[in-house]
């Protein structure tokens, strides 16, 4: 008999940039005990796990992240309390050193690396024109094994919507690769942090499985 699992309290960091309900309802759907959408330090400290989402333009996101001191919330979760943190889309991009978007924006530099534009006039393997934003369901190559990939077939499709992509300096951090004209980091893993460019909350069964895995992930083990 497995021990009864403790209901997981998840804090979704809210810095006022768009739709966080999808993330919250998807987490609730896969069994999170309590999901709080918050930018309150005490609530983050009290949570078992933290999700750092994000949509929108990076300059506005970074301005709000700094104004609401979400960088301090992240630091508390990541390094002080060392609890599992999942960053999604612009949340992932915000962790990097710098983004090319909006004429160049300094980001949190938690993961050294760049956020670059896909560039226009890219072509795919078959010579077809690649549209930007990169929007839709693309395959993610699981470049490294990770508990968050449990039960998800390699090269499963996830839903992406972005015009800028992440390239971490340390290539060993890549957990998932995306090919869209260039190779981009679809997922990065470092200790208790997992960051994804795609939207698991919009990626149907594969995405929900990843969120379920996140609720069960114990990086200390």
């Amino acid at each position, binding site marked *: 008999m497995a021990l009864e699992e403790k209901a997981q309290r998840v804090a979704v960091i809210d810095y006022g940039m768009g*739709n966080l309900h*999808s993330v919250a309802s998807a987490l609730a759907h896969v069994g999170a005990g309590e999901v709080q959408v918050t930018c309150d330090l005490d609530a983050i400290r009290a949570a078992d796990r933290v999700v750092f989402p994000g949509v929108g333009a990076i300059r506005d996101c970074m301005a709000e992240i700094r104004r609401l001191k979400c960088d301090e919330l992240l630091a508390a979760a990541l390094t002080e309390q060392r609890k599992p943190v999942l960053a999604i889309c612009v949340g992932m991009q915000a962790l990097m050193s710098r983004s090319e978007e909006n004429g160049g924006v300094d980001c949190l530099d938690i993961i050294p690396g760049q956020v670059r534009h896909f560039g226009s006039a890219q072509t795919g393997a078959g010579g077809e024109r690649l549209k930007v934003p*990169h929007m*839709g369901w693309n395959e993610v190559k699981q470049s490294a094994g990770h508990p968050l990939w449990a039960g998800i077939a390699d090269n499963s499709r996830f839903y992406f*919507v972005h015009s800028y992509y992440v390239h971490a300096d340390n290539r060993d951090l890549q957990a998932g690769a995306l090919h869209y004209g260039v190779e981009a980091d679809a997922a990065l893993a470092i200790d208790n942090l997992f960051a994804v460019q795609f939207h698991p909350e919009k990626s149907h069964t594969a995405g929900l499985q990843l969120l379920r895995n996140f609720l069960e992930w114990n990086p200390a083990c």
Partner: protein
Amino acid sequence: MGLAKRIIPCLDVDNGRVVKGVNFVGIRDAGDPVEIARRYNEQGADEITFLDITASHEGRDTTVHTVEQIAEQVFIPLTVGGGIRSVDDIRTMLNAGADKVSINTAAIVDPELVRRASERFGAQCIVVAIDAKRVADVDGAPRWEIFTHGGRKPTGIDAVAWAVKMAQLGAGEILLTSMDRDGTKNGFELGVTRAITDAVDIPVIASGGVGNLDHLVEGITQGGADAVLAASIFHFGEYTVPQAKAYMAERGIEVRR
């Protein structure tokens, strides 16, 4: 392998019920939008588009509530359109759980709305809907113009030039509907689809006229669309989403299975 072409069932919603008219007359009732959205989610639809066709006359509260209910149960992207006029309207729909918002008439009245919305929320969630109708050819070349008010009112705006302008202003995607074909089941108007997909770098969703699975294939192979949208062939059970995907995959189109 690469990015999959998307199949997007569309829910035209009137007073909280999914309907689909033939050229906007003879409306048939197809059911509860939340139930239908959930069915498409389970079938493996790649996205769902929700168009509030009563928006210009009715209160928005029903729509917001329906969008909230869909977003709680459906874990694929949801686009909401119909009656979106301002940055506040967009914020309301995104907060209700929409992932993208489709702007149509408001972009014609105030093109700068597209720029403001894109700067505020990001291009990824701003879809510009274009309702195009074929008009008299110029020098033997076909020409399509934008019509508003369900295809009744001409604007004099060239549809292809408009798509280019919308992309420049910050639209992240174009939802192109042929008003000549919408509801006819005769297939997409491939000429305008090809002209617009060739003219812009952003993804284009083809819409209007799907009556069978070959039409979906043509929208992609001949029209060059990144996604195909259909309503009645799915609503009335003629085809399921998996059938459509299997059919497309057999013809060499990459789809999510």
